[in-house]
């Protein structure tokens, strides 16, 4: 018996309506706004969650330190190796310590810390809160008359705000130290001389505003990751999505914030 084979029906791809994309973006910002208001209210309502805050300082700070130190060190080594050849070519070899300290303190340390922390801390918060959401732990907290915006979100956001500048100082220190080691391997130079020369070219206003701007990066990481985690839907797949989106959105907003903050720093602290 002959059988007729019909051609497979062409697959119709769902069309992406740009208006849907825009409206979901507006919706996202609206929800983020509501979330921020709730967290801000919770943050200033007594009593403060000290024990959870200290726990989060450890989770976001101490546990991120090795990775941040490594990233800072690598930056210092690479900057030293890359810049040395150029400076030698222009006969400005003696400027290397100043150039290295200036670059690390002014921009490389803060932005590297922000981006590495957004990966390490942002993914952690997004996944942890996402997992708590899909397993009803956040609902259980609310049902126990405990405000999750205060206990979970506010403590994490504040911890990130406090921890990022400290991590930046650690990244700066590791970067300068490793930059000196990389330089010393080629041309021995004392650490004291390297640091003295480097610091001589950097004023306090070169150090403080860029370091403190990472508090804003911390706020971005804490807020975006907590928000993405607490709105997780869709089981374990949703947890994965929240972790990923926490990192992606935190990094994106950090880069945007960096551009704005550098401009503001130049306005308020002109060189």
């Amino acid at each position, binding site marked *: 018996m002959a059988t007729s084979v019909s051609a497979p029906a062409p697959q119709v791809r769902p069309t992406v309506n740009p208006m849907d994309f825009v409206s979901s973006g507006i919706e996202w910002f609206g929800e983020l706004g509501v979330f921020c208001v709730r967290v801000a209210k919770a943050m200033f309502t007594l009593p403060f969650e000290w024990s959870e805050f200290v726990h989060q300082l450890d989770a976001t700070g101490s546990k991120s330190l090795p990775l941040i130190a490594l990233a800072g060190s690598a930056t210092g080594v690479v900057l030293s190796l890359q810049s040395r050849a150029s400076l030698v070519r222009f006969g400005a070899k003696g400027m290397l310590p100043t150039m290295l300290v200036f670059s690390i303190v002014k921009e490389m340390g803060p932005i590297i810390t922000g981006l590495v922390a957004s990966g390490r801390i942002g993914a952690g918060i997004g996944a942890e809160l996402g997992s708590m959401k899909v397993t009803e732990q956040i*609902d259980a907290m*609310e049902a126990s008359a405990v405000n999750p915006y205060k206990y979970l979100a506010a403590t994490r956001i504040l911890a990130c705000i406090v921890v990022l500048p400290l991590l930046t100082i650690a990244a700066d220190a590791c970067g300068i130290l490793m930059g000196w080691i990389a330089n010393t391997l080629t041309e021995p130079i004392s650490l004291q001389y390297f640091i003295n020369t480097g610091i001589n070219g950097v004023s306090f206003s070169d150090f403080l505003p860029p370091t403190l701007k990472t508090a804003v990066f911390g706020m971005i990481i804490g807020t975006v990751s907590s928000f993405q985690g607490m709105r997780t839907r869709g089981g374990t797949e949703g947890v994965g999505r929240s972790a990923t989106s926490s990192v992606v959105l935190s990094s994106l907003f950090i880069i945007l914030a960096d551009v704005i903050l550098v401009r503001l720093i130049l306005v308020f602290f002109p060189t």
Partner: protein
Amino acid sequence: MDPQPIVVKGLRKSFGEQQVLKGIDLAVNKGEILAVLGKSGTGKSVLLRLLIGLEKADAGLICIRGHETTNLQMDQLNEMRLRVGFLFQEGALYDSLTIAENVAFPLRRHSKMADSERQEKVRTLLHSVGLDKDLEKMPADISGGMRKRVGLARALALDPEILLFDEPTAGLDPITAAEIGMLIQKQREERNVTSIVVTHDMHAAHHFSDRLVMLKEGNILLTGTFEDFQKSKDPFVAQFLSDAA
């Protein structure tokens, strides 16, 4: 006369286009155990979440201990929640805390007990649900039945007058399910606690509840005792009973 602990009138709830509850009327007497039955997706768990204020009703009235709770401010809602214990389907234990810390969590937050007093209360609560050992274990290291027991101990921590159970016997072996049923009854016998138990386990509901409510497509299909359900001619109820037999 004390008001009925739970009164629900004309309760409606939709999620987008989907109408989950289409006008539920319900009243539970003091010390009564009411089982809410129905197929999956008929709004049983949503009903519990509305009662504790985890969801907001579209329309209708909820009265807990004589006070309307549908339009409460957060502070007032939290005040009400202190009198209501909720056992979640999977226990919803906090992953980062030990079993003992999970049970102590509401006590830490809402009571001014000394550490020693709190530890003693935690031990008593865990003993009452048959868990004397493994207090320092993490939730990931215990079985599903144990997680529900710990969840129950946590729900009982603040001596609630009302208990809400979301599928307390789901996924458990018959022996553990019967033990959970006995624990629910024990709360009524010892402290005259009023309970609503959401389940699709007709057999378990028959054993531990005083009255049954059958939900179908967002409406109450039948309310009554197990005998009333047995007498019912409704084919849906009959099928539910035959499947449970």
